[in-house]
């Protein structure tokens, strides 16, 4: 399990790096091309916006991994470490439930789009761009489920 978790974490990180570099590359190219020779990629702007959506979902997956999503922890500041461990588990259970619901209902959304055969840009079908929503939400649900079992005492802070 831990091996799978570590592999998944590395894949998420690598994907996030690739997505951002692609975003910078395409977005900057569009600006330069538009201003220098009034050109640019036909599907460039659409691709850029899909990349932002993917960054949102993969970034959110990484944040869920280390339990770093923004929260309003009014109560937690006044609790001792033991009661805090309990509230953390309950909060994680709630988040896991919502993520699971999101994953379940967005599968339906993606299926509708698949049946409609909508194109996002170029020859790329829309459902492929949207796939990250149910997959990401599903993995986030699993991450929070793991935290119900073993809450992280002090979340890793990278800054």
């Amino acid at each position, binding site marked *: 399990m831990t091996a799978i978790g570590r592999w998944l974490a590395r894949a998420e*990180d*690598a994907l*996030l*790096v690739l*997505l*951002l*570099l692609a*975003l*910078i590359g395409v*977005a*900057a190219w*569009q*600006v330069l091309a538009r*201003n220098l020779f009034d050109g640019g990629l036909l599907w460039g*702007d659409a691709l*850029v*916006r*899909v990349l*932002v*959506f993917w*960054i*949102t*979902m*993969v*970034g*959110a*997956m*990484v*944040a*869920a991994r280390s339990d*770093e*999503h*923004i*929260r*309003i922890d*009014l*109560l*937690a*500041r006044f609790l001792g470490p033991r009661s805090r461990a309990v*509230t953390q588990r*309950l*909060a994680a259970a*709630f*988040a896991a439930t*919502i*993520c699971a*619901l*999101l994953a379940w*209902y*967005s599968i*339906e*959304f*993606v299926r*509708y789009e698949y049946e409609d055969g909508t194109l996002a840009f170029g020859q790329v079908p829309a459902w492929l*761009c*949207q796939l990250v*929503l*149910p997959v990401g939400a599903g993995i986030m649900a699993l991450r929070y489920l793991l935290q119900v079992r073993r809450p992280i005492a002090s979340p890793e802070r*990278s*800054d």
Partner: protein
Amino acid sequence: MGYLGVAALVLAALLGAPLFSLILGAALLGFLLADIELAVVGIELYRIVDTPMLVALPLFTFAGYLLAEARTSERLVALVRALVGRFRIGLAVVAFIVCAVFTALTGASGVTIVALGALLLPALTSAGYDRSFSLGLVTSSGSLGLLLVPSIPLILYGIVAQQLDVGEPFAIVDLFLAGLLPLLIMLLALIVYAAWRFRDAPLPTQPFSARALGAALYAARYELPLPFLVLGGIYSGVFAVSEAAAVTALYVLVAEVLLYREVPLQALPRIIVASMKMVGGILLILGAALAFTNYLVDAEVPQRLFELSATYIESRWAFLLLLNVLLLLLGAILDVFAALVIMVPLLLPVAVEYGIDPVHLGIVFLANMQIGYFTPPIGMNLFIASYRFKESLLTLYAASWPFMLVLLIALAIITYVPWLSLVFVR
């Protein structure tokens, strides 16, 4: 069923569930009660793709993280110091300006206190400013600059407000124009306060030296074009905000990694993951909030809120006063992004009914949030500064309340003189 759901949401909020899950939960509950197919949350979240302005978020955030990683803050301090160091309270002025610029670039996530505090605090105390003043300055200035381009909270306010489509329409650039004079008022108020507090103190000044200025300019040679590129590009209309963000990200990447070589290539993945983790969190909340906002509008909640408030509050000025009190409290409790996505959909339609311009409301909103960041007892900057400078919270309360008072006066001016926010816009 409805009450049970609301109770569960409130309980989850108290327990400290992630904000995105709370808002998504609220949206799901709303759709469920209104007999709308729940697959609609997927559609609503995917609308992130229909908002071109959002492209600016990851790009500006990444650029900010890169700048924080490099020695940009040192160069910025040296440069501003060479420019205004000869004035009596020059160093305090340096600190205010540098904090504002740095916060605008990096977002008010505490990076300013962490990155600049270590630099400014010893510089201030060794130049003869007392420790309490210096601590107060660094703590309270960690959110200064929320109104300056390319502040991400300001962009987010614009996106949420445009989504609501009430009042006079405006562009995101209008918000950046609107923030200029109010920020200047805040800076002026702070500088006057510093000058008054040290009116008799023997503060050493640094004589102006063309050589020092030249050296500072040379050191900052690769970063100097950046403000002109961003500010000039956006204000002149050459770039859209999202285009400026793309150019900024690429430019900063080249400057810090290839030209200055202060950020090694191997460090990039770590910086990208750290910054995009934050962006993912914010955008997910925003996406969920947009879905929830649609539900609120369908249920005519803002309309009912206005009718309720109209029975108690008649004048626009009384409304603005209450708004300030409410926002200051919220600013102390909530993260600025949370406050934006929760409160703007509720407050903006009501404010518009009172005849308040959406652009003015945005400036007032963020000015409040900025002060809320270091409002005792639980403003976030106080905790960050306490942790960073190893000082007790009580020391920081004592150090920052004069700054709070000064900024509250500035806030009152900004609130009651809408002209300051609107002169360049309307």
